[in-house]
């Protein structure tokens, strides 16, 4: 129970935050005002309260002035509450005797009028001073952290995070929805700016995953449920049937050849539909696992039940092919989660004026990656859909990026991969290449140099957003070609450039199911739909849900180096948790004052975490502090004010309200 125990001696500390606060709020007046408030023993203002000398002020005063309550008027508690609690503890006082007042984010940064901002700060400080008097000593709770980790998504981000944690001796479950890991990177031909072959640097890591004793790899699988809390997540993974058993298949791939479809008929997803595959297939030669998949949509046996089942024949006594395979559900317990669910590329059909899907010779960048790839559908030969080789190619930048009508953000990688494709296409075809860009963005190690190299390769760069791609010709010179209409903003006039092939540098988007994934893992999305990090600078891989971390493009567009770096960071954060073995939790849990509980059971059904149980023998409710997340819904629901909440006691909030309104 929180009463105003003993004599209360409050220290109030007003931070200037340089000029961030002091520039708008009259910190001197605020401090002077605070000094006059009841129970306030000391009130000081200081340039940077979060700095060591700032924190020393608090430590010193607690000792010298026998303070037992601390109010810090500075920035958001989300930023520095921990800092000032530590300072308070260092001063020998229980850290929960601190109350922060957010006069920066909620005041000086959002208001322009000095008088009004100062008035607001005064109200807020007065409220905090009244509130803190009712604070009480609390101890943080502890939850144990299991040493297993879940990684969702088997692209380069997920692969790197999984390997890092596995190498540190933690068991990792890597869940990938596609039949193979590798993600988008597996589809790329070369990587900018070094032009080393994507497969050559990726596939070793893929097989490392496969062979790692600490990694359980589940491809063709989805996370369908997750319950619990940091350190103790119960995860349900549903493994879709691939109709070929991983444990029995030796990866000889004879079944592919044996398929009754002599001609492959199904558009090949991995090759962006530029080639065909059979109903039984393996996405690409170096796929991991090396186990084929049967696609029931197109397999004769599944459609008609009248197939010779030559695949089963050829598999023979290995019996790896099992057409009766059912979905399997796996239940695992993990301590931490790394989300690496990646991105999707912008659907160029959403920009009809560029003619994708309408004119056969308009391609997306990803299609070109496959087209120039030696192991691609054409063995690296650049052949137009209408046949023949392009003599001229136009690469249109920012398709679905930096555009009010589609996506407003810069996708960060398009400039560089467009340069790369320009280089590769020139290399493969010797064609004349035009790049149409808004701004050329090459902010990375070796990027600008690569751009210069391209300039010396006589690739044309035309600065301007392309208006349209059309086959409507104005001159005989344009006949039978695709005309790119663009305002050349450097030359200052509109140009029509006929080409044989158009490449659309499509941008990066949040995956279509990002919202569902977000809800599943109880994290947030930023406005454009990428997963939101806890702090853009200070907590770039954390989320607002403890123990869940972000890696790669699910958090925002990134190139491969940044993705790998971030995956390493996410793995490190997860490892830090798992190695500590436990995590301290906010003691803001709800609790029942048993003697006054009438056993009305109102609270029990309002708790989303089933933390409240009814003790039949004593006919009262009881709250499990480990399960309680501290939302306080039951506190508001309790009809007789018998349930209370640490750190958010009724008295404390009433004091805050009345403090704010004291002179209203």
């Amino acid at each position, binding site marked *: 129970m929180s009463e105003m125990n003993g004599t209360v001696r409050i220290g109030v500390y007003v931070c200037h935050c340089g000029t961030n606060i002091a520039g708008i709020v009259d910190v001197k007046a605020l401090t002077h005002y605070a000094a006059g408030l009841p129970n306030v023993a000391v009130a000081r203002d200081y340039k940077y309260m979060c700095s060591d000398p700032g924190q020393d002020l608090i430590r010193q005063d607690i000792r010298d002035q026998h303070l037992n309550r601390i109010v810090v008027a500075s920035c*958001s*508690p*989300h930023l520095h509450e921990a800092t000032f609690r530590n300072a308070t503890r260092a001063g020998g006082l229980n850290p929960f005797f601190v109350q922060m007042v*957010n006069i*920066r*984010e*909620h*005041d000086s*940064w*959002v*208001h*322009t*009028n000095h*008088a*009004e*901002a100062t*008035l*607001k700060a005064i*109200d*807020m400080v007065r*409220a905090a001073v009244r509130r803190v008097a009712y604070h009480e000593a609390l101890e943080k709770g502890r939850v144990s952290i299991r040493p297993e980790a879940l990684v969702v998504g088997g692209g380069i981000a997920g692969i790197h995070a999984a390997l890092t944690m596995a190498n540190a001796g933690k068991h990792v479950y890597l869940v990938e929805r596609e039949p193979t890991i590798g993600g988008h990177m597996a589809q790329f031909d070369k990587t900018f700016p070094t032009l080393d072959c994507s497969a050559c640097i990726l596939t070793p890591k893929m097989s490392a995953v496969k062979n790692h004793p600490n990694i359980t790899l589940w491809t063709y699988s989805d996370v369908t449920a997750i319950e619990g809390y940091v350190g103790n997540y119960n995860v349900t993974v549903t493994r879709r049937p691939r109709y070929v058993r991983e444990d029995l298949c030796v990866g000889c791939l004879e079944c592919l050849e044996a398929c009754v479809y002599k001609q492959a008929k199904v558009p090949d997803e991995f090759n962006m539909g530029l080639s065909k595959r059979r109903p039984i297939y393996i996405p690409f030669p170096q796929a991991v696992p090396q186990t084929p998949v049967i696609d029931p949509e197109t397999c004769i046996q599944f459609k008609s039940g009248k197939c010779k089942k030559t695949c089963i024949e050829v598999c023979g006594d290995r019996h790896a092919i099992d057409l009766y395979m059912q979905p399997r559900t796996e239940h695992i317990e993990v301590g931490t989660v790394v989300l690496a669910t990646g991105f999707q590329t912008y659907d160029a059909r959403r920009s009809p004026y560029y003619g994708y899907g309408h004119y056969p010779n308009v391609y997306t960048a990803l299609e070109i990656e496959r087209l120039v790839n030696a192991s691609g559908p054409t063995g690296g030969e650049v052949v137009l859909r209408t046949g023949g080789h392009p003599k001229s190619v136009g690469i249109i930048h920012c398709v679905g990026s930096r555009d009010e009508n589609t996506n407003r953000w810069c996708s960060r990688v398009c400039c560089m991969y467009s340069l790369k494709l320009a280089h590769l296409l020139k290399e493969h075809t010797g064609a004349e290449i035009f790049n149409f860009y808004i701004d050329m963005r090459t902010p990375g190690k070796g990027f600008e140099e690569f751009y210069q190299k391209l300039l010396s390769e006589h690739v044309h760069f035309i600065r301007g957003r392309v208006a349209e791609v059309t086959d409507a010709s104005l001159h005989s010179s344009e006949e039978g070609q695709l005309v790119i209409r663009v305002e050349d903003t450097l030359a200052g006039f509109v140009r029509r450039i006929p080409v044989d092939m158009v490449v659309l540098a499509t941008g990066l988007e949040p995956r279509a199911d990002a919202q569902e994934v977000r*809800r599943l893992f*109880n994290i*947030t*999305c*930023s*406005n454009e739909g990428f997963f*939101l990090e806890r702090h853009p600078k200070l907590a770039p891989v954390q989320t*607002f*849900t403890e123990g869940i971390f972000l890696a790669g493009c699910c958090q925002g567009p990134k190139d491969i180096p940044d993705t790998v770096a971030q995956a390493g960071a996410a793995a490190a954060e997860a490892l830090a948790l798992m190695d500590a073995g436990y995590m301290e939790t906010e003691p*803001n849990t709800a609790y029942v004052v048993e003697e006054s509980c009438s056993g009305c059971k109102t609270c029990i059904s*309002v708790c*989303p*975490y089933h933390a409240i149980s009814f003790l039949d023998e004593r006919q009262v409710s009881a709250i499990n502090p480990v399960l309680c*997340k*501290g*939302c*306080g*819904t039951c*506190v*508001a*629901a309790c009809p007789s004010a018998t349930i209370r*909440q640490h750190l*958010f006691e*009724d008295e404390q*909030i*009433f004091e*805050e*309200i*009345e403090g*704010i*309104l004291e002179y*209203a």
Partner: protein
Amino acid sequence: MPEEYEPKIVAFFCNWCTYLAADLAGTSRIKYAPNTRVIRVMCSGRVDPQFVLDAFAKGADGVLIGGCHPGDCHYQEGNYKALRRFRLLQRLVSQMGIEPERLRLEWISAAEGDRVRAVIDEMTAQLKALGPARRSHAEAA
């Protein structure tokens, strides 16, 4: 008291969405009316109707409750609890002669810094139009 009447709004913002949105508004230097005073609660579901009524009783011209969007609650369903209490409270306060505009519930996600501005500016303007909240007057004793 400044020249123009400045309404005082007591705001209860949930820790995970609306409070963060207000922080974001700050870091983005979005400017809005200085009329709110934010009280941080972990979840809009913690907002006890008593708090709202006390705020009005102690002279608040408006009360704003901010929570996560439906389906996005950090605590799964707290915002729905808030919604039900709010709707019932809304009926009560209008019976008590308090204009419904003075009590408002808004879903504002951590990403919607500008929405904080929009809501606070709009509510402030509405309250200015309404004028100061009427006080109860007990003349006995």
